[in-house]
C-alpha cells in the first residue's frame, strides 16, 4: 500500500482506514435497496412516496443512521467525551507538524464531501425509482450540518455538558429555519443563498476552536458554581446502608440521568408544536401528543447503548474495568443495580413528561380538546374501563421505556465486540426488511388475510422461542450459581403472576368477542420481559470473568 504523501492524505487515510467497513456496508445497503426495487417492482415501474407504495421509507431509517454516524465520525465524536470541557478534537493530532488551518480544514472538507455525496447518492437512486428529489440544497444542508457540528464540538467550553446543549440548540435552530423554508415553499436559489455562506462561517469557527484547543486554552467557569457545590458538600447524605444501595447510586450517577436529560432536551421543541397546531384540526394535537408520549421509549433506545457499556470512557468501552469487576458483589447484584437505576431513570423521564404535557396543554389552550377525547372514551367504554385503558396505555409506555433501557443490556454486557456487531447487523437487517415486508402485507389482501389467519401460530411460535430461551438461561443460571435457587424460583413465580395479572387486565379491558382469550394470553407472555433480562447476569459474568 502506498504511504500517505501529505498531511491531507494522512488525515484522509485515517478516516478511510477506520471506517472502511461501514462504507462497504453502506454500499451493500444501497445494493440491497436496488435489489428490492428490482424484485418487488421490476424495471421501469415507478415507486411513489404516497401509500400504498411509500417504500422510500425503507431508506429513511438506515440513511438517518448513516447520517448520524458520519456526523460522529468526522467530528471525532466516536472517540471523544462529548460532555467534557476539553475539545473532542483528538489531542494526539495537535502535536502533528501541520497548521491549525489544515487540522480544521481537511476533516471538514472530507466530511462535507461525504455528507453531500451521501445525499447525492440517495437522490440519484430515488431518480432511478422515478422520485424527483431536490439535489443541491439538501446536499448543502447535510454539509452545513456537519460543518457546524464539527465547529461546535471541537470548541472547548467552561462547563461540562455545555457542548451538547450548544450543539443541539444550534442544529435544532438550523433545522427549524429549513423546515419553515420548506413550509413556505422558499425557492431553491434562496435556500442555497442561506446555506452556502454558512460553510465558511463554520470553518472559521472550527479553526478558532482547534487553535484554542491546541494551545490548551480551555475556559473554566466552574468557579461560578463553587458556592452551590460547597452547599451540596455540606448537605451530602450519610453512608450507604448496603452495597446494593451504593451500587445503585453509582449506576445512577453514571448512566441514570442520561434518559431524563435527553427527554428534557426534546420536550420543549415537541410541545412547542401544540402552539403551532392549536387552531388546526385536532388530529394534529393528537399526533403531537403521541410524539411526546413516544419520546421516552424512543430515547431510551439511545440511552440503552450507554447502560450496557461497562464504562463509556474506558479504552475497551464494553469490557469491565478492574474497578468495576473487583466490586465485592455478585454479577446478579451488579445487574440488580443497573435494573434499579433504569427504573429511576424511567420514572425521572416520565415525571418530566407528565408535568410538561398538562403545562403545554394549558398554556397552548388545547386542554379542552384533550378533555373532550377523554369524555368520548368514557362514553364509549364506560368510566371504569376508560380509566383502566388509559392506565394500561400509560403503564405500558412506562414499562416499555424501562424495557428499552434494559432488554438489550445482555448484548453489550458480554463485552464481546463480535457479539455486539453481529447484533447490530441483525438489527440493521431487520430495519431494512421490516418496511418492505410490512408494505407487502398491507398491499396484498391475500397475504394480509394469510398473516391474520396465521397470527396465533406466529405468536405461539414466538412464545415457544421465548420459553426455550428462558429455560436455557435458567438452566445456565442454576448451574453457574449466579442466582440462588430461591431467587430463581421467586423470579419465575413473580413473572407468572405478572403475566396472569396482565392477561386479566387485557381480558377485562378489551372485552371483544372477536378476540380469542388465548391470543391475549400469548400477548401477555410476549409482553413480559423474561429471557433477555435473565441473560444479563450471565453476560456480565462472561465479561467479568474472562
Amino acid at each position, binding site marked *: 500500500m502506498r504511504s500517505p504523501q501529505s498531511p491531507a492524505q494522512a488525515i484522509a487515510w485515517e478516516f478511510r482506514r477506520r471506517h472502511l467497513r461501514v462504507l462497504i456496508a453502506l454500499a451493500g445497503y444501497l445494493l440491497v435497496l436496488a435489489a428490492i426495487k428490482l424484485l418487488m417492482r421490476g424495471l421501469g415501474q415507478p415507486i411513489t412516496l404516497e401509500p400504498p407504495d411509500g417504500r422510500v421509507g425503507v431508506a429513511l431509517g438506515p440513511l438517518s443512521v448513516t447520517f448520524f454516524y458520519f456526523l460522529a465520525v468526522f467530528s471525532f465524536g466516536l472517540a471523544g467525551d462529548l460532555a467534557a470541557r476539553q475539545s473532542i478534537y483528538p489531542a494526539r493530532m495537535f502535536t502533528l507538524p501541520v497548521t491549525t488551518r489544515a487540522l480544521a480544514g481537511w476533516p471538514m472538507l472530507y466530511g462535507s464531501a461525504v455528507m453531500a455525496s451521501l445525499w447525492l447518492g440517495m437522490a440519484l437512486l430515488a431518480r432511478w425509482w422515478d422520485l424527483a428529489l431536490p439535489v443541491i440544497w439538501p446536499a448543502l444542508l447535510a454539509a452545513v450540518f456537519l460543518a457546524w457540528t464539527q465547529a461546535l464540538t471541537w470548541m472547548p467550553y467552561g462547563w461540562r455538558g455545555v457542548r451538547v446543549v450548544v450543539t443541539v440548540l444550534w442544529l435544532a435552530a438550523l433545522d427549524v429555519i429549513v423546515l419553515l423554508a420548506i413550509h413556505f415553499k422558499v425557492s431553491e436559489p434562496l435556500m442555497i443563498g442561506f446555506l452556502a455562506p454558512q460553510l465558511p462561517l463554520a470553518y472559521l469557527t472550527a479553526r478558532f476552536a482547534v487553535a484554542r484547543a491546541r494551545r490548551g486554552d480551555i475556559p473554566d467557569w466552574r468557579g461560578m458554581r463553587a458556592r452551590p457545590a460547597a452547599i451540596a458538600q455540606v448537605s*451530602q447524605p450519610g453512608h450507604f446502608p448496603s452495597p446494593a444501595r451504593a451500587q445503585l447510586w*453509582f449506576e445512577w450517577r453514571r448512566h441514570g440521568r442520561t434518559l431524563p436529560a435527553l427527554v428534557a432536551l426534546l420536550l420543549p421543541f415537541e410541545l412547542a408544536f401544540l402552539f403551532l397546531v392549536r387552531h388546526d384540526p385536532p388530529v394534529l394535537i393528537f399526533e403531537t401528543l403521541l410524539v411526546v408520549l413516544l419520546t421516552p421509549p424512543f430515547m431510551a433506545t439511545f440511552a440503552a447503548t450507554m447502560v450496557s457499556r461497562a464504562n463509556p470512557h474506558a479504552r475497551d468501552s464494553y469490557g469491565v*474495568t*478492574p474497578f468495576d469487576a*473487583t466490586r465485592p458483589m455478585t454479577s446478579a447484584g451488579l445487574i440488580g443495580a443497573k435494573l434499579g437505576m433504569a427504573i429511576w431513570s424511567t420514572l425521572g423521564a416520565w415525571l418530566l413528561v407528565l408535568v410538561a404535557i398538562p403545562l403545554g396543554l394549558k398554556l397552548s389552550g388545547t386542554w379542552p380538546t384533550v378533555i373532550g377525547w377523554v369524555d368520548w372514551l368514557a362514553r364509549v367504554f364506560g368510566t371504569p374501563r376508560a380509566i383502566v385503558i388509559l392506565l394500561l396505555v400509560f403503564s405500558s409506555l412506562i414499562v416499555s421505556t424501562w424495557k428499552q433501557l434494559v432488554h438489550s443490556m445482555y448484548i453489550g454486557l458480554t463485552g464481546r465486540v463480535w457479539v455486539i456487531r453481529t447484533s447490530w447487523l441483525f438489527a440493521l437487517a431487520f430495519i431494512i426488511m421490516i418496511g418492505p415486508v410490512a408494505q407487502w402485507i398491507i398491499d396484498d389482501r391475500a397475504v394480509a388475510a394469510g398473516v391474520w389467519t396465521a397470527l396465533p401460530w406466529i405468536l405461539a411460535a414466538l412464545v415457544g422461542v421465548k420459553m426455550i430461551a428462558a429455560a436455557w438461561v435458567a438452566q445456565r443460571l442454576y448451574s453457574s450459581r449466579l442466582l440462588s435457587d430461591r431467587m430463581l424460583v421467586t423470579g419465575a413465580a413473580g413473572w407468572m403472576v405478572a403475566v396472569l395479572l396482565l392477561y386479566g387486565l387485557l381480558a377485562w379491558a378489551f372485552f371483544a368477542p372477536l378476540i380469542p382469550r388465548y391470543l391475549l394470553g400469548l400477548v401477555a407472555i410476549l409482553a413480559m420481559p423474561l429471557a433477555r433480562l435473565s441473560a444479563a447476569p450471565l453476560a456480565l459474568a462472561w465479561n*467479568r470473568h474472562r
Partner: protein
Amino acid sequence: MGHQPAAIVTDSTAPTASVVITVSDLTRRFGATTALASVSLSLPRGAVYGLVGANGAGKTTLIKHILGLLRAESGSVRVFGLDPVADPVGVLSRIGYLSEENDLPGWMRVDELIRYSRAFYPAWDDGYAEELRQRFALDSTARIKNLSKGQKARAGLLIALAYRPELLVLDEPSSGLDPIVRRDILGAVLRTIADEGRTVLFSSHLLDEVERVADHVTMISQGRVVLSAPLDAIRESHRVGERTPSLEEIFVAHVGMPATPPDP
C-alpha cells in the same frame, strides 16, 4: 525481614490454613500467545511477595486470575481456599486491590469515592481512611479525573487499604509515583500491613523497589515461573565469593534480559 519462615513457593506443601493463594498448574493462552504456562504457586499468609518480570511477562495475567477477572482455562486458582470466579464476594471482600490501569471513576469526587467504597466493606475504618487521605494530601472535594497520576494512585491505595484487607494486591503500584513518595508511602504501607500478619502481593518491573520491601520474590518470564524463593535465600544462593549480586543481576542471569528495558 522477620516474617513467615521462608519457603520455596513452588512447593505447595504449606498447611492449607496458612496459605492465602494457591495456584496449581495454571495455563492461559490469548490466541497464539501463551500468557501463563503451568504456573504453580502457594503463598503463605503474612509476608510481602514481589512478583517481578519484564513487561508482558504475565504478571498482570496472574494477578487477574487471582482476582477472578480471568477464568482459569486449565489448572486452578484458590484464594483463601475459595474459587474467585465462583465466589467473587467471598474473595474480593477480603482483598484490597490497586490496579495499574488507574481506572477509578473520573466523575467521582474523592469523598464520594470513599463513601461509595466503604459500603462494600464492613471492616472499613473511617479513622484510618481519613488518616490516609490526609497523609496522601488528597483534597476530598477534588474530582478523580482532575487528580494527577500519582494522586490517582494514592486515591486507589487509600480505598484498597482503609478496610485493612487480609490480602493486598498491588499491580505495578509504583506507576505514576515519584521516587520520594514511592519510598515513603509504599514502603511504609507494605511494611505496616505485613507486620500485622496480613499478606501483600505486588507486581513490579522495578527490581530495586522489590528488593527494598519484599520478603519473597517470584520471577516470571514468558508466562513461566523461573524462580520463586525468599529474597534472602535467593541472594545467598547467588553469592559470588563476598559479593552479593543485586536482584537485577540475578534476574538477568535467569531471564537473559533486564526487567526494565534500557532507555533509548
